[in-house]
């Protein structure tokens, strides 16, 4: 560790992993509820479990991004963090607020939670991914501002690199677009239109800057390739992300009441969205091929190479699969969407956070560069189990989706939703099995942190 205050990243990474475990446990519950409809009913109905699953995902990724920023920005800026104390206060506030929110979801009916947290005063709840009580949303803004202040002050007083600037720009964008979560008009159509300014402009916009910056940082450290080359690639990749992704928002505006020209604009621009992900694949493999050193952390290298590949498949290929308006007319809101969502989030954001954790954690634990070979072997097993598990979750959901579309939307005699769900339940059982493989991978991942052994040196 080059700067003492980088150690702030460690609690953030640990919290991220802890919440990740919770997310996956609820994922397994949800998968079972798809086939055993009354599992845990009425104590934990599907909507509650899903809310926990998706909200934990968002929160742990945010912990991961913040941890990444606390690790990267001091090192990039060549200076200590502006206020480590503030960073620790922010950590506890965010963790406690997050835990209370999740407990609220699980302990009381959602309507009661809405009532006691004052949703009547400023209604923002009950919208997908933005289910948090308004007071939690305000808390998120406060935490984000304190975090951004800390990180920005650090960058301002030190060396300004392209990587830290892009990372900070992405994080500011994240906070800025989250403000649209407070806009909830009575008109459902307006609500939906601007809901996407949070959701789409996050995951297909500013989050891609964060993704690019983290990946570029890890690649610089691991390959020793000249910073100039990596930064040029970074600029081009994120340029393509935003050039395609901003107007690409239109692929959400086809069927929610917006004018029909969005079918053209959304189709054309979002068809180009795989390009930056494909460039990311070329970039990562190129940099590794041109490496000037053999970094001893092979596990981190695996995550860093896996990220662009899986992001390209999940976000790029599975996104393109259903993004053209005439196709989306049939696939919209089916299991195809679920398939894409799972692999895209895993490939792009889960894996990049695991990549920076894999790179940074040994150093944060006082090692020179890497864990023991034994520990890395277990971690690499976890990589393959989780990744293969996710590939099959995606494939089975895609199979379910195709059948669903055929039976419910395209055939001569369209059948009802519930009837079709029963007919395709085999695919849901298989998805659940793949989910258990993913869970097994996650268990290996946790174990890898406790495997001792001699530090591996180059």
């Amino acid at each position: 560790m080059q700067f003492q205050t980088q150690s702030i990243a460690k609690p953030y990474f640990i919290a991220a992993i802890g919440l990740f475990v919770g997310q996956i446990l609820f994922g397994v519950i949800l998968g079972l509820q798809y086939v055993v409809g009354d599992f845990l009913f009425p104590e934990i109905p599907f909507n509650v479990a899903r809310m926990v699953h998706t909200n934990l995902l968002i929160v742990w990724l945010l912990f991961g991004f913040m941890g990444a920023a606390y690790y990267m920005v001091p090192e990039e800026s060549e200076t200590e963090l502006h206020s480590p104390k503030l960073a620790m206060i922010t950590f506890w506030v965010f963790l406690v607020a997050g835990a209370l929110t999740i407990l609220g979801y699980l302990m009381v009916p959602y309507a009661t939670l809405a009532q006691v947290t004052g949703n009547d005063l400023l209604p923002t709840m009950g919208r997908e991914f933005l289910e948090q009580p308004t007071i939690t949303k305000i808390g998120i803004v406060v935490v984000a501002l304190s975090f951004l202040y800390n990180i920005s002050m650090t960058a301002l007083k030190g060396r300004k690199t392209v990587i830290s600037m892009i990372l900070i720009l992405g994080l500011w964008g994240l906070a800025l677009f989250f403000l649209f979560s407070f806009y909830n008009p009575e008109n459902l159509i307006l609500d939906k239109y601007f809901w996407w300014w949070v959701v789409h402009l996050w995951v297909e916009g500013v989050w891609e800057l964060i993704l690019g910056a983290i990946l570029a940082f890890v690649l610089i450290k691991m390959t020793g390739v000249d910073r100039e080359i990596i930064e040029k690639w970074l600029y081009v990749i994120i340029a393509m992300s935003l050039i395609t992704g901003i107007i690409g928002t239109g692929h959400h505006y086809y069927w929610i009441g917006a004018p029909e020209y969005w079918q053209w604009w959304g189709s054309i621009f979002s068809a180009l969205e795989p390009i930056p992900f494909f460039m990311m694949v070329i970039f990562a493999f190129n940099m590794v091929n041109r490496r000037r050193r053999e970094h001893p952390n092979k596990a981190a290298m695996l995550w860093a190479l896996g990220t662009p590949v899986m992001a390209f498949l999940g976000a790029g290929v599975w996104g393109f699969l259903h993004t053209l308006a005439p196709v989306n007319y049939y696939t919209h809101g089916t299991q195809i969407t679920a398939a894409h969502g799972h692999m895209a989030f895993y490939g792009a954001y889960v894996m990049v956070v695991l990549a920076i954790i894999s790179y940074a954690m040994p150093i944060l634990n006082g090692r020179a560069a890497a864990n023991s070979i034994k520990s890395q072997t277990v971690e690499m097993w976890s990589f393959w189990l989780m990744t293969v598990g996710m590939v099959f979750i995606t494939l089975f959901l895609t199979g379910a989706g195709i059948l669903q579309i055929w039976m419910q939307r395209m055939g001569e005699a369209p059948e009802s939703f519930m009837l079709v769900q029963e007919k395709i339940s085999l695919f849901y059982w298989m998805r659940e099995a793949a989910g258990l493989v993913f869970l097994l991978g996650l268990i290996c991942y946790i174990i890898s942190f406790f495997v001792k052994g001699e530090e591996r040196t180059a």
Partner: protein
Amino acid sequence: MSEKFTKSMARNMFYGGSAFFFLLFVAMTFDTMGVLPERDHRENITPEVAHGKKVWEDNNCIGCHTLLGEGAYFAPELGNVYQRYGNSKEAIMAFIKSRPVEGIPGRRSMPQFNLSDEDLNAIAEFLKWTSEVNTANWPPNIQG
């Protein structure tokens, strides 16, 4: 990447491209806002419809259902449920009201939300209003 393509060109492409397309997106949003009133028949958003949206949100209906294709994929699409239930508000209200508290053994079941008659009427009004938005002929058929 080619040596002739410099880092500052890449930087300009990023800042210029992003700014241009974001401004274009904002301009298109302004245009959409101008056209929307003809498509979303907002003049029909009565106090009941607005209250229905609140009931919809307060009970996290989107956690199982899709509405105009957005939400969770565990339970049926509700953007056209009003037509699917024979253009009947009463049928929608009766369905919500009659959900068994303990669920249905082995099957998916909607929770019993114990909504008041006022809330039931409001949610039905909200779903009726939603079903009358111009959604470019989506969903493809009555099954949603």
